[in-house]
């Protein structure tokens, strides 16, 4: 017997990184939102590495921030170290990464959730969905509370039929010994969901007091930390370093000798693990000639002594983990506080979703985060935001949001998932983005603030400050395109001092800036801007002028892509009625049900001839209507 526990517009199941963004985006759009989680002390918990950002992922955090999400703000308030990566490379691949204070991150996020208008937090384990007439109408918890809602978002991460494995020990569990969610997973299967088994893992944590850091290399943060959120103004200067050490032949011998005891190799683990985040036993087996592997020692926070042994993810028995640590410089005496483990879990085959992250076969139901076969806090958060925006849209009948591959890494991520699916836990890489020069860390606000504002996710104040910045950038660019610099002695001296060849004739300031050795600051000395410009404005002007050629080229490709994206496929299309489609293409098209010809062309197994045939078929329908 259930009891009526209330009515909502949107219910979010889970309060991990996807759940938090989903709930806040939904509430911000004005939907009355309920968030249900197993344990309210564990919202936005980081069960794996204590860091946020990195290549591609860091850009996702910026995108989330530009769309009014919270991950960037929370990490900016709780980092113990901040580093800009790839500073020696081009602007497209610069990426920010923070080391997080895990307990503080939880606290800060919980505080935001508790104070978010329209959002209710409640502890509870969901066991069933209420599905009526094929549509999702709410949830039922194990305490028999029935909550009704117009949309439901599942963000259960690795909890669904989670199973932790250490050596030959294996038990039902979510990450970090939390309760696994078994009934919900079974329920989804009953509803006809296609589920797959994935696996991931985590390394042991050791006590900082027992680490000899003198045998390791220090990895400090940036002297002047940058930030994820466009709203962050104050930096945390008191940073804590990480430390680098290495495995060696002794470590590898212990692994070799005990390989049979590893759950990965004994056959106990059936799930597919990610190639980009292999366990140490995997690394040693696959790259046997490599004499050493990097191990990063990362503090889990300011007020804890736990240290995360990055690079030593493993499912070997606890005593082997201890023996391994003893061979590693600096960790000889290290005491394990928590052992490393592998975790297997159910995830949803993501081709069952529309690009809005709504489930195709159950309107009103959305899934986001690791349940969709991804890995990583940032990938989860990005999906959560999109699901939150669209669940609210569906509940309130307002505008939906689908980001395309040229707008955001989040767009690349979701398009990959729903169009191609994934056969291992999916991680974003810069190489997955064909327009990565356009998807930069520095221009996330230019790409997405307008969208965020229109959807009601961005405050008026924030929008004003963005508009102002953008106007300054445009104005300064135009100015530099006009100003002509004469080859005066001082200018020539500056150029030669910076390793350039002197000017032959007068030159436009913008053209001078295009030279590799020039920066905005150097050029502006000879033609100062009228107003004092923000460093972010200067950076933007410099990047846009310097890399204009490449940016233009990317934009041309995007235009081509957009033409195909604009060819919409009617939702009532009958692929069986189209003669000439190859069998494989027909089957894939029926499964994925792409929204546009562009999306269809990215499905593996759909070749150019099939795309042509599809185009002709769609046009035929249009002609038929006219006649």
């Amino acid at each position, binding site marked *: 017997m259930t009891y009526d526990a209330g009515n909502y517009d949107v219910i979010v199941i889970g309060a991990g990184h996807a759940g938090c963004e989903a709930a806040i985006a939904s509430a911000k759009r004005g939907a009355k939102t309920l968030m249900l989680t197993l344990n309210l002390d564990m919202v936005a918990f980081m069960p794996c590495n204590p860091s946020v950002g990195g*290549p591609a992922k860091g850009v996702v955090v910026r995108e989330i921030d530009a769309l009014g999400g919270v991950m960037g703000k929370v990490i900016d308030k709780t980092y113990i170290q901040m580093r800009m990566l790839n500073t020696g*490379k081009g602007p497209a691949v610069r990426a920010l990464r923070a080391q997080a204070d895990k307990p503080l991150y939880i606290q800060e996020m919980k505080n935001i959730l508790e104070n978010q208008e329209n959002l209710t937090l409640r502890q509870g384990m969901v066991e069933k969905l209420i599905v009526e007439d094929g549509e999702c109408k709410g949830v039922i918890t194990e305490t028999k509370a029935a909550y009704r809602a117009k949309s439901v978002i599942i963000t259960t991460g690795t909890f669904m039929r989670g199973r932790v494995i250490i050596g030959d020990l294996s038990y039902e569990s979510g990450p970090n010994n939390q309760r696994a969610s078994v009934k919900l997973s079974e329920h989804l299967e009953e509803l006809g969901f296609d589920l797959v088994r994935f696996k991931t893992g985590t390394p042991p944590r050791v006590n900082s007091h027992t680490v000899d850091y003198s045998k390791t290399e220090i990895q400090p943060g940036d002297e002047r930390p940058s930030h994820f959120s466009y709203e962050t103004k104050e930096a945390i200067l008191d940073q804590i370093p990480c430390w680098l050490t290495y495995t060696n032949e002794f470590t590898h011998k212990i692994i070799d000798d005990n390989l049979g005891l590893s759950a990965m190799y004994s056959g106990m683990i059936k799930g597919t693990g990610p190639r980009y985040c292999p366990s140490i036993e995997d690394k040693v087996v696959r790259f046997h000639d490599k004499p050493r592997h990097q191990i990063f020692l990362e503090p889990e926070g300011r007020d804890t002594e736990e240290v995360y042994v990055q690079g030593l993810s493993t499912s070997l028995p606890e005593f082997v983990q201890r023996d391994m640590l003893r061979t590693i410089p600096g960790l000889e005496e290290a005491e394990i506080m928590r052992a490393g483990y592998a975790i297997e879990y159910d995830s949803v085959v993501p081709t069952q979703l529309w690009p809005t992250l709504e489930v195709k076969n159950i309107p009103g139901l959305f899934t986001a985060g690791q349940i969709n076969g991804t890995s990583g806090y940032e990938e989860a958060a990005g999906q959560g935001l999109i699901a939150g925006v669209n669940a609210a849209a569906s509940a309130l009948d307002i505008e939906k949001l689908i980001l395309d591959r040229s707008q955001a890494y989040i767009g690349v991520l979701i398009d990959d998932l729903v169009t191609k699916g994934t056969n291992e836990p999916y991680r974003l890489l810069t190489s997955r983005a064909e327009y990565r020069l356009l998807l930069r860390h520095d221009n996330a606000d230019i790409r997405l603030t307008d969208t965020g504002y229109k959807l009601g996710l961005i405050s008026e104040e924030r929008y004003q400050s963005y508009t102002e910045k953008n106007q300054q950038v445009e104005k300064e660019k135009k100015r530099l395109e006009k100003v002509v610099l004469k080859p005066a002695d001082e200018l020539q001296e500056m150029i030669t001092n910076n390793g350039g060849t002197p000017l032959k004739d007068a030159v436009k300031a913008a053209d001078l800036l295009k030279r590799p050795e020039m920066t905005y600051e150097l050029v502006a000395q000879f033609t100062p801007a009228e107003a004092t410009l923000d460093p972010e404005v200067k950076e933007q002007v410099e990047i846009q002028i310097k890399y204009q050629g490449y940016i233009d080229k990317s934009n041309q490709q995007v235009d081509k892509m957009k033409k195909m994206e604009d060819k919409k496929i009617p939702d009532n299309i009958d692929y069986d009625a189209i003669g000439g489609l190859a069998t494989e293409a027909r089957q894939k098209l029926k499964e994925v049900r792409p929204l546009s010809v562009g999306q269809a062309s990215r499905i593996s197994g759909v070749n150019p001839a099939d795309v042509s045939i599809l185009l002709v*078929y769609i046009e035929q329908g249009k002609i038929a209507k006219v006649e």
Partner: protein
Amino acid sequence: MDTDTIAAISTPIGEGAIAIVRLSGEEAVAITSELFDGKELKEVESHTIHYGKIIDPETNEVAEEVMVTVMRGPKTFTREDVVEINCHGGLASVNRLLNIVLSKGARLAEPGEFTKRAFLNGRIDLSQAEAVMDLIRAKTDKAMNVALKQMDGRLSKLIQKLRQELLETVAHVEVNIDYPEYDDVEEMSHDMMMTKTKEVYKEIERLLQMAQQGKILREGLATAIIGRPNVGKSSLLNALVHENKAIVTDIPGTTRDVIEEYVNVRGVPLRLVDTAGIRETEDIVEKIGVEKSRQVLKESDLVLLLLNYGEELTEEDINLFKAVEGLEVIVIVNKTDLEQKIDLDQVKELAKDHGLVTTTLVEEKGIDELESAIADTFFAGELDAGDLTYISNVRHIQLLKQSLTALEEAMNGMEQGMPIDLVQIDVTRTWELLGEIVGDTVHESLIDQLFSQFCLGK
């Protein structure tokens, strides 16, 4: 729909005295006009035909004498502006013409694309839609099959090798980007990238030169017909060409016509060397000796060696066999209408593994067998799409040229000191273009390469 201008050869290749290159799209008239020495085509009336010359923009020389028909949309097959350039029917002429047009900005039409455009622009009615889809399917499958089947094995291997090198380079850059702390690999420098780019550039340039020298698929096999005087060389030529272009008499040395002929023998394009050449080859061994004539004949992809059934083998015949050692040869014993004097066992011994056919060319007997022998020699089996062979090859040339452009842009970027991750965009583009030649454009393989080449963790 697509607004770019497409071009293709719209007549069967190597069959017929006239061939047509057809262009369709907004730029059809402008592109032709730029190449055309004659009336200003932009100003002529629609549906008119004009005599003139096509100038090769690379050399500024006259490439072809042509007749050009200008037809402005919408009263055309595709409802777009259409230009048809009529030229001589030889493979080389029409091929060259198409390449010139493509170099000026037209894109090689996909299989069935003219028809597709006609349909999408409303030119073909609904009842034909099904047929259009069938046509696209059929033509595309055929073109792909033929392209893959006929691509020279060595070419394919070479391209795969270049792609692998590029892929490793790209993966190297990617690992630097996605795993900046990964210390097992040095940072890809401009110098390293430049060296690799130049290597690949050279290789592609070489490939392109080979293609342009007129190797097998593009211009046809250079085919020499040799034999003693009056053994029937001109008759053979005529039989293959199905036309009386050369003069045939019983008097030795009366072959006067100086032409090159292109014929399509069961899908194998042959370029028959000029008849004057035949005249010279008949005296060749006598005049310059076996070694020297070997040098001359070395340029041939195929030699048709004729013997006289009605005469005994002579010293000259034996020398011809010596001169063609190591070349692709088909031995033809002609004039079986005469009384046998030739020792066929000896001929078989001399012919070794080469094809051996007997004919009576004046009565057109044995031609079928000869044509099969030619086809067998090169495709070891049947092949029925001679025109597609050739078109897919034009596509290859276009892709190779685009690859060179992409690599040039990569090199320019490096010279301008652009960051390596930007330079890499053009290198990746090259990898994709080469992939189109060998029919492999799956982007996933980069990520696979990344994880197989490097041991990545963080």
